[in-house]
């Protein structure tokens, strides 16, 4: 267990800046998940922590020690790769003991470590097989086992589950969560998958184009995104954004006019300073915040319905063509093409300024 501290970390590949100044504190034992769109630099950042990629500038500390120029094998980290990266010419047992052999760990100590890891992961019956003879889930378990035996202070995972099918992914996700609980090791985990991020993380780091957009606990990011990017990125289906104009503000509420909805006016409660009257804003409403007793009223036409059994996602349009996604409990009563008055909870709606920053 160790903490990880990144101070103004930067990375360029030649003239291209990929990581543009990242500051991040990861406390010991924490499960941190990096999310962000493809190409935003998640893997690069993780590989810099691992020591597989040079750090252009900034300081990386693991367990208090500066690790910028330390060899990957001496950083106390272990990494699990997306493609598993098992040595194809070695058996499971050899794969798992390989690193220890090179670290000149005594033979009986290696055996003890490997056996205990294989027990934790249920690999006992597979130890003499080659990776080719394993299923995807088993390979992933071996890859995790291989990193456990090294008893790292920090585990690094780069999209470890993205090559697995949906069912296995759920299963392995639970297993990784259990592993984290049992070992208590710090984990840094990269994923595309929102559900993985929301369910596994103690702390989510949202990256965009080499910059941290927001850091926080999963529900905190969900409830209180700092900008439209995070608001749109976390949550599925995406949050709805409506262009609006501030019409008036009183003590605690901001009245926003929505041109896309026949200039309907909704009153959004705010805690902080009010935006200037007349300024352009963006109103964010999550699909599940549409509710029968909400105060905001929008008139819509339903395009399409997705019945998931318990709830229904209605994809609808305003008179001017603005798209809206609504989650509703009584989707069975609705029909495509139907006119429909949707109400949403104004107290759960979020307001963003023109640049996308949240107005509190």
């Amino acid at each position: 267990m160790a903490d990880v501290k990144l101070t103004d970390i930067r990375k360029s590949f030649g003239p291209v800046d990929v990581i543009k100044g990242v500051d991040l504190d990861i406390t010991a034992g924490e499960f941190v998940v990096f999310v962000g769109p493809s190409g935003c630099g998640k893997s690069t950042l993780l590989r810099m922590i691992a020591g597989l990629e040079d750090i252009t500038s900034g300081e990386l500390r693991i367990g208090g020690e500066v690790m910028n120029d330390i060899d990957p094998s001496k950083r106390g980290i272990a990494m699990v790769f997306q493609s598993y990266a098992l040595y194809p010419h070695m058996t499971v047992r050899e794969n798992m003991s390989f690193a220890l052999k090179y670290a000149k760990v005594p033979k009986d100590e290696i055996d003890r470590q490997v056996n205990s890891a294989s027990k934790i992961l249920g690999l006992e019956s597979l130890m003499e097989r080659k990776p080719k003879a394993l299923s995807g889930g088993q390979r992933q378990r071996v890859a995790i086992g291989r990193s456990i035996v090294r008893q790292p202070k920090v585990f690094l995972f780069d999209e470890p589950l993205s090559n697995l099918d949906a069912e296995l992914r759920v299963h392995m996700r639970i297993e990784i969560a259990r592993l984290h609980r049992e070992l208590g090791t710090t984990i840094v985990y990269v994923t595309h998958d929102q559900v993985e991020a929301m369910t596994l993380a103690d702390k989510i780091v949202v990256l965009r184009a080499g910059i941290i957009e927001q850091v926080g606990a999963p529900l905190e990011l969900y409830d209180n995104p700092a900008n439209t990017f995070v608001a749109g990125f976390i949550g599925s289906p995406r949050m709805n954004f409506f262009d609006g104009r501030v019409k008036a503000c009183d003590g605690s509420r901001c009245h926003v006019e929505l041109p896309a909805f026949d200039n309907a006016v909704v009153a959004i409660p705010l805690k902080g300073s009010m935006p200037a009257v007349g300024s352009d804003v963006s109103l964010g409403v999550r699909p599940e915040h549409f509710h029968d007793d909400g105060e905001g009223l929008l008139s819509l036409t339903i395009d399409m319905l997705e019945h998931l059994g318990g709830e229904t996602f209605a994809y609808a349009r305003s008179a001017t063509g603005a798209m809206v996604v609504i989650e509703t409990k009584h989707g069975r009563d609705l029909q495509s093409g139907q006119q429909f008055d949707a109400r949403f909870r104004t107290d759960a709606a979020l307001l963003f300024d023109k640049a996308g920053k949240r107005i509190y």
Partner: protein
Amino acid sequence: MKNLPETIRMACTYVFLVLMAFLSLFPFVWMMIGATNTNTDVTKGKISFGSAFFDNFAKLSELFDVGQIFLNSAKIAIVGSFFTLLISSMAGYGFEIFRSALRERVYQALLLSMMVPFAALMIPLFTLLATADVLDTHMAVILPAVASAYIIFYFRQSTKAFPSELRDAARVDGLKEWQIFLFVYVPVMRSTYAAAFIIVFMTAWNNFLWPLIVLQSNELKTITLAISSLGSSYSPDFGVIMVATVLATLPTLLVFFAMQRQFVQGMLGSVK
């Protein structure tokens, strides 16, 4: 009847294939037959097995120390292949794995060097080896082949299929660069090595011109040189020549059949 054109097409295909098979196999069969016949029978064009094989072999042994010559060829081919594979695969691996500003330039220069005909290299190479004072040794035959642009090219192409995450994993596991190469890359790419080995071994074994130029001592000569000297004598004994040729062909056949599966696999790409 609508299948008639199809039948004719098939028939043509088969006739063509049989013809090609015959063309490529006939010299081989003829060589085997010739090896068992006397010189007179061979020159008369006899196309059936005779009984003179052991006589021919005895005559060959009188002319040459067959064991020594075989050993010379084997030494050059095996030692040469080993070093060619080692050096050229390291180069190919390096070219693909390590980034550098000059990498592509150097690589292109290397590929361009494949276009220089060997005839143009012979004299400078000869002078070079003379300066190094290794003429008339097996080293002189082996050295020029060790860095083969073609094999480097082949290994660089194959290395593209080598998963970079495997290298990362090995680095995290604490292996040094040379250990990654030796203990991860080489075993993973073994079918690539097998395919390259066949190519390199055959080239080295069949090499004629260069050994002819640099080897002068009789006890260093290779089997290809021996065969050629048999043919250039005043009255060549074709039975003996055929025996020598059979002997010369055997090892390449053996190597090929022993490694055929890996060869095909290596040609298709080794990492599955």
